[in-house]
């Protein structure tokens, strides 16, 4: 089984965001960057499938700046066989442009399965993986929490509002991973040592037409200071009163 896992380097979830002077980007200094959390589930699933098959290759692919090499190394330490960085200096804000770059890379790669995290916690579009499936003309299932693959076919379960959708498809296919798909492994020391020697290919790519222009990036409006309405059970009456008369939500 040949499996691609498309990954992204993102600010850690505990990061406090500061807007840069250009009003269109964040201040990166002092931020801890990590592998996108949902991509960990994608990578774990790829490794499990390869282990279950007893053969195969897992390739981690990232679009980004040189700093993404470190993120690819993290996946190599988890167990991916090799990595590819599609290098660009300035990422497009148009998710379709990113999807096109990946589709071009993946098209003739002869992959049985292409995995993504369901969304990147920076951009939050939840779109690139599904777009890649469409661009390649192969099945895709997004936000998958349970995956079974056998005999060139797959069954995926995805959470929808108040239920779980069960989807059947044939390989090759694109799957985007939701939390709950598995328990991602931590890279062991041996894995980290081995990762340094695994191949990581860097290729420059560029994007041309974009139809999404970022006008501004701002911090969300600060919430007006709230107040403690009371202590213990005695506060309940006061809370009910303000929710009724002041907030008008009851």
């Amino acid at each position, binding site marked *: 089984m040949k499996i691609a896992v498309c990954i992204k380097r993102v600010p850690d979830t505990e*990061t406090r*965001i500061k807007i840069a002077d250009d009003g269109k980007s964040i201040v990166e200094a002092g931020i801890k960057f990590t592998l996108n959390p949902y991509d960990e589930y994608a990578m774990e699933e790829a490794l499990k499938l390869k282990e279950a098959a007893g053969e195969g290759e897992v390739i981690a692919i990232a679009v980004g700046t040189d700093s993404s090499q470190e993120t690819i190394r993290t996946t190599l330490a988890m167990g991916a066989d090799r990595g590819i960085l599609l290098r660009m200096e300035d990422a497009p804000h148009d*998710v379709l442009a990113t999807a096109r770059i990946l589709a071009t890379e993946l098209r003739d790669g002869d992959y049985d399965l292409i995995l993504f995290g369901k969304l990147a916690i920076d951009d939050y579009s939840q*779109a690139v993986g599904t*777009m890649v499936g469409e661009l390649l003309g192969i099945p895709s299932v997004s936000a998958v929490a349970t995956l079974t693959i056998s005999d060139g076919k797959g069954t995926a379960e995805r959470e929808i509002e108040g239920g779980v959708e*069960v989807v059947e498809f044939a390989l090759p296919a694109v799957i985007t991973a939701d939390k709950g798909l598995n328990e991602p492994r931590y890279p062991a020391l041996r894995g980290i040592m081995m990762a340094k020697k695994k191949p990581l290919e860097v290729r420059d790519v560029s994007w041309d037409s974009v139809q999404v222009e970022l006008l501004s990036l701002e911090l*969300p409006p600060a919430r007006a200071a*709230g107040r403690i309405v009371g202590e*213990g059970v005695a506060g309940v009456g006061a809370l009910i009163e303000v929710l009724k008369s002041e907030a008008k939500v009851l």
Partner: protein
Amino acid sequence: MGTVLAVLEQRDGTLKKVSYEVLSAARQIAEKTGDVVHAVVLGPPETDVTGLGAYGADNVTLVGDGRLELYQAGLYAGALVESVNAAGSTAILLAATALGKDLAPRIVARLGSALASDVIGLDYDNGIIAVRPVYSGKAIAKVKLSGAAPVVSVRPNAFAPLSDSRAGEVTQVALGEGIVARSETVQVKEPATATLDVAEASVIVSGGRGLKEPENFKLIEDLVAAFGGDAAVGASRAVVDAGWRSHAEQVGQTGKTVSPKLYIAVGISGAIQHIAGMRTAKVIVAINRDKDAPIFKIADYGIVGDLFEVVPKLAEEIAKIKQS
């Protein structure tokens, strides 16, 4: 005159509440562009699509086919692209639900158009201007979409339904022939008791580690029940990671970002990643024994105290109001 296409969502042949919000968002664009709002519903032929003029639809197309009862990605995307081509759309709007988040990128890839996901505000100035939370709500991006047929998915609860009086004339069409499905949704498994999804609820009561034991979520469920049908249970990452609650209920950066009318955080300290997911709630209430908990910094109203005493009392009082 062009068309703003509003893609409405049905479940079991009934339109979802968020569909009226999509119509409202479409109307907002149409008022600026002078376009008509054309609603498209994909579903079984018996889907009830009457009366949509009252929510802002100028006309309505029901693509009626038994195969569209469940969400079938390929059939839905194919049918929608046909509708877009037929209507010559200025923009295509849908809801950022499980269905919408899967469908939007498919049509964008097929049409080669622009996408803005999970949008909370809209404007038009020689192109759609969309406001959307990024970094799961830690920042707000304003983007401009260009090119033909840009696609916008709107966050549930971000646009209030309208009260309008338009024709809303219904045409039913058949699913186009030759539309290919590359996957098949074979069933939807539903839990024994139907629950409202946390992303769609107007009132959310979320529990955190302060509840001490998974069984104590009963307190949260009781408070939710007191609010009635429009409320849902939420959970912090800590309790989801501990296996107390399902990921479907998680609010925060690796869970759901929500904008309810009322958010009640119970025994949740208020980690950055949690606050990111709920800070756009209209009113936030925090109940916590630690008066220095960060959650009180963003809450509108707080009660410092033992949740095991406060929450049952609150449920009792809410129930009284709801029953009166």
